[in-house]
């Protein structure tokens, strides 16, 4: 290719912009994490204290609480949304459903709604006194609660809302996966007398593996970093029971003004994310 320089020139603006707006702030973050910087002092003058914050975070019960909350949150929301998503996608991919393709429009709605709107809408619906959810639960004789406010339900309620928010994404991606499957091996298996479960388990599932990997990793990264709707739903409470790692970091920096420590926590989240996304990017471009 004799005009290779032109194509390399095409790459330069993107690389330059991304390098400028990602590398410098990341280095800045790491440097800040090694200092005693506080938001209370206006200037950047702060003492270098090495890995002090990192050692401190290791013995900090709040760190462990945040890791536990994020861990439980991530495992439950990713696991359950995947299970439901797989089931619904499988049903929608069946031949007799192909006439009703418009159904997938319904799943687009929660997927593209702004998370803050989702959080606020559920908060209204879960309002203890006049909320519609408690009213509906009352009709069928189930207990009525302040679902977002009580210690034993708050975390599971925000997990439920996250599952509600993200299952449609899983459905639509897996459905696209089912529809990209080659027809021949599936038909051959049926001709050989396999049951539909056997076909699903031994033919479809192995073929879907690359797509399943993409979905799971995208969801893991997103769930582990999750913080936004917590601000409008529980603000980390009651107590610290819904304080995820990102939300805890936010509180360290912007409520306790302990920027150095918050930066150290952010670096830890960054490292976990890098590990997860290295696995993801490999699976994104795998040629089947």
């Amino acid at each position, binding site marked *: 290719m004799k005009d290779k320089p032109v194509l*390399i020139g095409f790459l330069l*603006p993107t690389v330059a912009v991304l390098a400028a707006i990602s590398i410098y702030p990341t280095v800045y973050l790491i440097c800040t994490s090694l200092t005693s910087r506080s938001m209370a002092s206006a200037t950047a003058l702060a003492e270098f204290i090495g890995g002090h914050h990192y050692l401190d975070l290791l013995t900090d019960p709040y760190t462990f609480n945040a890791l536990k909350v994020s861990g439980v949150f991530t495992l439950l929301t990713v696991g359950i949304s995947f299970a439901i998503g797989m089931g619904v996608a499988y049903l929608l991919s069946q031949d007799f459903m192909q006439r009703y393709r418009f159904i997938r429009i319904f799943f687009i709605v929660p997927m593209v*709604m702004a998370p803050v709107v989702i959080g606020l809408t559920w908060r209204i619906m879960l309002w203890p006194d006049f909320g519609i959810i408690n009213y509906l639960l009352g009709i069928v004789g189930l207990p009525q609660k302040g679902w977002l406010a009580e210690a034993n339900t708050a975390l599971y309620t925000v997990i439920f809302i996250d599952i509600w928010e993200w299952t449609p994404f899983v459905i639509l991606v897996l459905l*696209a996966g089912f529809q990209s499957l080659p027809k021949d091996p599936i038909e051959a298996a049926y001709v050989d007398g396999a049951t539909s479960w056997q076909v699903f388990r031994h033919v479809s599932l192995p073929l879907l593996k690359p797509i399943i990997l993409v979905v799971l990793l995208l969801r893991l990264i997103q769930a582990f970093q999750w913080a936004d709707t917590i601000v409008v739903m529980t603000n980390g409470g009651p107590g610290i029971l819904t304080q995820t790692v990102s939300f805890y970091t936010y509180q360290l920096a912007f409520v306790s003004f302990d920027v150095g420590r918050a930066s150290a926590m952010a670096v830890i989240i960054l490292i976990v994310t890098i590990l997860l996304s290295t696995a993801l990017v490999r699976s994104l471009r795998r040629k089947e």
Partner: protein
Amino acid sequence: MKISRGKKVLTWVFLIIVIVIFLFPLYYNLSTSLKNEQDVATSPPKWIFKPTLVNYKQVLIPGFVSKKLTMALSGGHLLNNLKNSLIICFSSVLLSVSIGMFAAYSLARLSFSHKEDLAFWIISIKMMPPIAAIIPFFLLSKYLRVYDSYRLMIIIYTTFNLPLAVWIMRGFFEDIPVAIEESAMVDGCSRTQAFFRVILPLVAPGLVATVIICLIFSWNEFFMAFILTGRHSQTLSVAVSAFITPWGIQWGPLAAANSLIIAPIIIIAIAIQKYLVRGLTFGAIK
């Protein structure tokens, strides 16, 4: 394969339950936005009521004062946030797509060692935890005195939009056979001319889809805007959270604002539904 009638009925029952669960909050939000104050927070809820537009007027018309709303914020205060959201989102998305399309084309056509490593580095920036970007951007913006400005928000959204745009568009360029621009170049076009005159028109639908997907991400973004904007550049998604006050929630205006935020996004998302999955998986699934 034949599927029994019973199984079909079960499938439908299950799907309808799932769809009702997924759409109910949307319905509830919409109906709340059309209720006046007396009908909003009641138990049992009013399923049938006389719809009113008072909540929409409250959030959209400057200076609107309703006798029906006792706890009203000043009318029309969302208009300013709407303007901010539009300026920030469109600037960042157009910037990202117009720079990113060249890189995407280059990645689709060039082959050089470590090309995939470069592509991975680009998308890994999209994966960056928002909080790890927020802290340094906050400190630097205070230092450079650009906190709470359009510039800051456009830059930070571009950090996340540009990688996304590159990855989605790379797939669209790869879909176009190399032979097309080769024949154009045999006819005397330069690479740049071939790109603008031949390739770009062919990927136009993909380009539009990319713009829309980036717009959805930026429009919906909350956490970064929540921390990095103040009175001057506050976006819609942050402004709507202010309806929850220490004195209570204004259900009606909140629901109206919610509907205004999600309506345009739902419409454009449905318009490009063919490309939506592809965009949300960074081009991995076609």
